[in-house]
């Protein structure tokens, strides 16, 4: 072959450069661009005439400006071509990944006069690499065991999750058969894939078991998918397993806990039945025993009276017991018929104290902390709680002593304390006191009768209304203090169309329902004191319904004072069982009562209709 002339060689070189797929850029020793081929234009977006004569630096991202000097330095120092990957700026401002080869350009004397760079766009390759790296990182960092295998079951990939879940390292498992993990009788991934070929399913998920390196069986949730090559032919299977051993154990534990609680309830019921029958048998034994003796033998009149007295006492004890048992049964079944209404607690306490009667050895003093907010309670049952604590305080003060009732406002709750100077309680008894049928059996208490249910009933009533009970004592002989709490009415005036003053909660509720049915709101106060408080706190009812026979302040007095409290006169309807004499009726009319209705069947409708009519006239 004849060697080409120099001219032809140059021409050929120029053609090669022009037709190259790689960007080829020539620069002089000051990095000024001297040549720019079409591929360079494609790579960077600049035409040759835009860049020739400019310093190459404009192609460099700001953070890579020193790269140029470093490479040039190495080339100048006589190094051969420099290969590296870096980033450059496209004309449109975007960053592109490029692979570079920088070589020195020498003149005929061998002096370096510039550099040539051959550049290739590798942005796409970089992207693919990044995605693959991310995928690998995801697979590797997954807590699930992700395994790839051939159709023969030979393991080809084994991530860190697999190492953790199965206990084998990747090195130990690559190339091994998946059967190593499958306990006898459990489905094998490759068989599943074979089955899926027929059904054209993409994945299959199910729960099964696998065996760890240490031999332990684990519950796994398994997802098996086929691996296809680029032609869509299935060449293997992937197996993703999640260890659900703990999850299953937890589920079993939950089921067991549920069963335990059902059993506990049933056991508590059994215990209750056994306790009740035991508690019933003792008074019954006295009652029947004395009956039989009186029936079969002669006794003196004095003896007869003594025995009949015992029988009466034991009969009453039986009745109390049955009532308490029924009561607690209702409370436990959640059948508390609560009728929550605002209530003036001080008036309620005073009523309980009055009902407890006079006992000169055990006088009850009430000390309240100024003006308490209204409590939101079921007055009937809280009255019972108070009565019960007061009765206990007296019962367990056999040698007498003052009983002190105090109230306090603590964080949105009113606390009520009933303190006695009686027998007191050892510290270890305090937590057990509120349990059903629990009775303290120390010598000085043995003679005091009780069903062992009173405090249990109190606890249930108070707790059902959002309060708490507690017992306190400095020890035997130092008295006891029983405390319970009740929630206060939310602050701000209570607003309603109708104020109902009625101590009978059942009747009060009927009235409320009548107004609700007529589109009016109604609030019930269980006594006049509470009603007066509601009015004072800014309730502006458009009508008032009042009973006359009320626990504290009487209805007559309440309605007489109404004018000054409601401001402009509003319709007032009195509902009462009282037979009123003409002068009593006219006295009521004089203080502004609109109508007096007898409390009888249909009274609630009549009262509601009357008030609706009166309001319509306004």
């Amino acid at each position: 072959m004849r060697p080409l002339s120099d001219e032809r060689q140059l021409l050929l070189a120029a053609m090669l450069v022009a037709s190259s797929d790689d960007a080829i850029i020539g620069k002089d020793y000051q990095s000024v661009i001297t040549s720019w081929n079409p591929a360079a234009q494609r790579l960077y977006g600049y035409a040759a005439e835009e860049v020739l004569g400019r310093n190459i630096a404009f192609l460099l991202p700001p953070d890579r400006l020193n790269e140029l000097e470093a490479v040039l330095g190495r080339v100048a120092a006589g190094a051969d071509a420099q290969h590296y990957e870096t980033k450059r700026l496209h004309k449109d401002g975007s960053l592109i990944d490029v692979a570079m080869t920088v070589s020195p350009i020498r003149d005929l004397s061998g002096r370096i006069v510039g550099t040539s760079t051959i550049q290739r766009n590798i942005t796409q390759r970089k992207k693919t690499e990044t995605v693959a790296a991310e995928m690998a990182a995801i697979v590797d960092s997954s807590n699930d065991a992700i395994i790839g295998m051939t159709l023969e079951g030979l393991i080809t990939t084994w991530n860190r999750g697999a190492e953790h879940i199965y206990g084998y390292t990747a090195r130990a498992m690559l190339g091994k058969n998946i059967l190593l993990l499958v306990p006898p009788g459990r489905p094998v991934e490759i068989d599943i894939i074979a089955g899926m070929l027929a059904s054209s399913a993409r994945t299959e998920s199910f729960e099964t078991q696998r065996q760890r390196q240490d031999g332990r069986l684990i519950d796994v949730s398994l997802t098996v998918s086929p691996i296809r090559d680029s032609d869509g032919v299935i060449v293997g299977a992937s197996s993703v397993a999640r260890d659900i051993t703990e999850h299953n154990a937890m589920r079993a534990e939950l089921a067991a806990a549920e069963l335990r609680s059902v059993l506990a309830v049933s056991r508590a019921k059994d215990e209750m039945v056994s306790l009740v029958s035991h508690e019933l048998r003792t008074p019954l034994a006295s009652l029947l025993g004395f009956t039989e003796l009186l029936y079969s033998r002669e006794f003196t009149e004095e003896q007869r009276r003594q025995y009949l007295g015992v029988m009466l006492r034991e009969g009453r004890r039986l009745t109390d017991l049955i009532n308490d048992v029924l009561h607690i049964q209702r409370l436990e079944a959640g059948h508390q018929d609560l009728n929550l209404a605002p209530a003036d607690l001080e008036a309620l306490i005073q009523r309980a104290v009055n009902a407890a009667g006079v006992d000169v050895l055990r006088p009850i003093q009430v000390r309240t902390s100024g003006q308490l907010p209204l409590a939101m309670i079921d007055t009937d049952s809280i009255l019972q709680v108070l009565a019960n604590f007061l009765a206990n305080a007296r019962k367990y003060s056999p040698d007498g002593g003052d009983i002190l009732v105090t109230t306090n406002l603590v964080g949105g709750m009113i606390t009520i304390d009933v303190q006695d100077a009686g027998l007191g309680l050892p510290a270890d008894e305090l937590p057990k006191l509120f349990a059903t049928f629990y009775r303290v059996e120390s010598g000085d208490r043995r003679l005091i009768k009780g069903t062992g249910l009173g405090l249990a009933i109190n606890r249930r009533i108070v707790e059902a209304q959002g309060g708490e009970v507690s017992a306190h004592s400095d020890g035997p002989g130092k008295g006891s203090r029983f405390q319970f709490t009740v929630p206060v009415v939310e602050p701000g005036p209570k607003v309603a169309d109708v104020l109902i003053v009625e101590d009978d909660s059942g009747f009060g509720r009927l009235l409320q329902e009548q107004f609700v049915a007529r589109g009016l709101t109604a609030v019930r106060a269980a006594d006049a004191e509470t009603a007066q408080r509601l009015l004072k706190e800014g309730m502006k009812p458009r009508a008032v319904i009042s009973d006359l026979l009320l626990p504290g302040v009487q209805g007559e007095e309440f309605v007489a004072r109404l004018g000054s409290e409601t401001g402009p006169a509003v319709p007032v309807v009195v509902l009462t069982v009282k037979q009123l004499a003409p002068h009593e009726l006219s006295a009521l009319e004089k203080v502004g009562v609109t109508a007096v209705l007898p409390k009888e069947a249909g009274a609630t409708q009549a009262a509601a209709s009357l008030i609706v009519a009166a309001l319509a006239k306004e």
Partner: protein
Amino acid sequence: MARRAPAPPAVTFVLIADDESSMRLLVHTTIESDSYQVIEAADGDEAWALIKRYKPSLVLLDVQMPGRTGMEILASIKRDPSLRAVRVILMTARALESDRTAGMAAGADFYLAKPFSPLELLARVQEALGL
């Protein structure tokens, strides 16, 4: 509570141990007799003290009492050779057959479930005392 009898040893004693005063009155009234002296205890510890002191011929023992329970007292009686002659009738509000079996197995002479007939109680007392 206990009607302390004077202690000449020739007298036959019958002890009633029950924490319920109405039961003590009922049993006492039922078995009152010139043939023996009835004494009472209102709890288990008092009962055990009276048993050791008076060595009663018969103890009418409530099972559930404060202090020592009736079953504990029964076991103590059976362990003490000096109390070999003491007969025991258990009185209990626990009426299950298993309670009866346990009481008899522990060495009680008879087991009465409350409520019981006073006349039956009297018959059992006389039987136990050989009257």
